[in-house]
């Protein structure tokens, strides 16, 4: 069953079609790899599906066939969608712990002013920070973390994330989460993604390392110039001549 799909979704910048009438779907409970050469539209697609940029045409279908023409960034949490960014976006002058606690806050202005259940928030933040190996750094400012730690904190933040009804998120977009990580940190991220799959969550992974794609992904989508070039099982897709030519330059 497809938990998220696009129907002819499009985005253009000054006449350049970054995403060109793209219709694809993401299977519930699976890890889907999203690959393609630089400028193929991977990050633009994620930005469209998370409301960060406006959709120029087409539809997004979430869950039970709810068709959406316009997604706003603050609405995606209610659909159970969360994401990391290609260029890490942390709350730099806040503590590591607060970077996680903030996404657990009630989203209504007045409810957040008089919020209770803070012990639950702390327990949850502790759980995810231990998972990504940053609990010892909880009182450091985010800006003082190393590049790899920053990536891990961003991943920890999406793990803590819940939808508007207090349930864990269902759809996780990871935009190049392994870039610039040491082997030990890679192991942590691999374990996080595998855990999510075990819990029945849907993961969409943008990644350039084909070994990781082969190891983790159940399904692979290849984009080129904003269009679908190929999709299917990773081992099949990665052996297709068109993919090798467009993406790997072979």
């Amino acid at each position, binding site marked *: 069953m497809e938990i998220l799909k696009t129907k002819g979704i499009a985005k253009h910048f000054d006449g350049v079609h970054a995403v060109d009438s793209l219709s694809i779907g993401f299977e519930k409970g699976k890890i889907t790899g999203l690959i393609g050469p630089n400028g193929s539209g991977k990050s633009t697609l994620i930005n469209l599906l998370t409301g960060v940029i406006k959709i120029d045409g087409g539809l997004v279908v979430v869950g039970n066939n709810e068709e959406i023409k316009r997604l706003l960034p603050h609405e995606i949490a209610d659909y159970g969608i969360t994401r990391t960014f290609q260029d890490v976006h942390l709350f730099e002058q806040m503590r590591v712990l607060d970077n996680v606690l903030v996404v657990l806050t009630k989203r209504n202005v007045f409810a957040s*002013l008089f919020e209770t259940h803070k012990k639950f928030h702390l327990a949850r933040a502790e759980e995810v920070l231990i998972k990504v190996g940053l609990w010892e750094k909880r009182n450091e400012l985010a800006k003082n973390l190393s590049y790899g730690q920053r990536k891990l904190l961003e991943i920890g933040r999406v793990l803590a994330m819940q939808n508007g009804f207090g349930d864990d998120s269902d759809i996780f977009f990871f935009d190049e989460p392994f870039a610039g990580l040491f082997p030990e940190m890679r192991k942590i991220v691999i374990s996080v993604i595998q855990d999510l799959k075990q819990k029945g969550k849907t993961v969409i992974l943008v990644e350039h390392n084909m070994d990781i794609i082969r190891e983790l992904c159940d399904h692979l989508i290849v984009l080129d110039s904003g269009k679908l070039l190929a999709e299917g099982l990773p081992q099949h897709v990665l052996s297709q001549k068109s993919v090798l030519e467009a993406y790997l330059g072979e």
Partner: protein
Amino acid sequence: MLAMSLNLVVGFTGLLSITQAAFYGIGAYVTAILLTSFGINFFLALIAGIIITGIISLAIGYVLSKFNGDYFALGSFGFNIIVYSIFLNWQSLTRGPLGIPGIAKPTLFGLDFSENNYFLILVIICAILVYFLSEFITKSSFGRVLKAIREDEKAIQVFGYNTLFFKLTIFVIGAMISSVAGAFYASYITYVDPTSFALSESIFILAVIILGGLANNKGAMIGAVCLVILPEILRFVGFPSDIAAQMRQVTYGLILVLLMLYRPQGLMGEYKL
């Protein structure tokens, strides 16, 4: 009070607002007009000032929410000038440059605050209440979201926060607190005119919180104390009387430049601009 109110907007939320003197002025004028023309109790006038300032700031905040960064600062700058021009030119209401004299001191249940000492106690009580209100806001989960907006609005939005509501709420709360300060100012001086609420006053309040420390409520109070006491200290330096006022401005400017160079977070600040 003024510094703490601006610190909520600039220090905690990262909205570089240069319009706080306008809200301070609205509070002062509403109090002045209600006390001199209608003779109502100071505290009722104060509440009316808070409500009117809240409504006006909601409208201004909504318009300003369309801007970000430097454009927000420029827009807020423009609003201060508009409000100042209204004080100056709506003569049937504000008496324009003549100002409004004869503003009464507060009285409450037979207590008369005309004596300066009692007035001081009243203002200190209000300042303490504003401090605890600011602490409550900034230590709450709401306050944490404000800081996240300051750090990266795009990122906090994708976690489900409609940042417009959070920014508008704190902007209006900040304006309402400023209006309280304006009401006390009007009653203390017993006279208001537009020159007290010009752009330079907004810049002065900004200087106060940058000196004391952004995103720190105690820092805002310390900044206010430093910059209010500083002119008195400068009297002892012995500048010639014809340049003393200008030298005061030069000193403020110099302090700000030195702070930006060597301690951009201010004396007690937790956030660098």
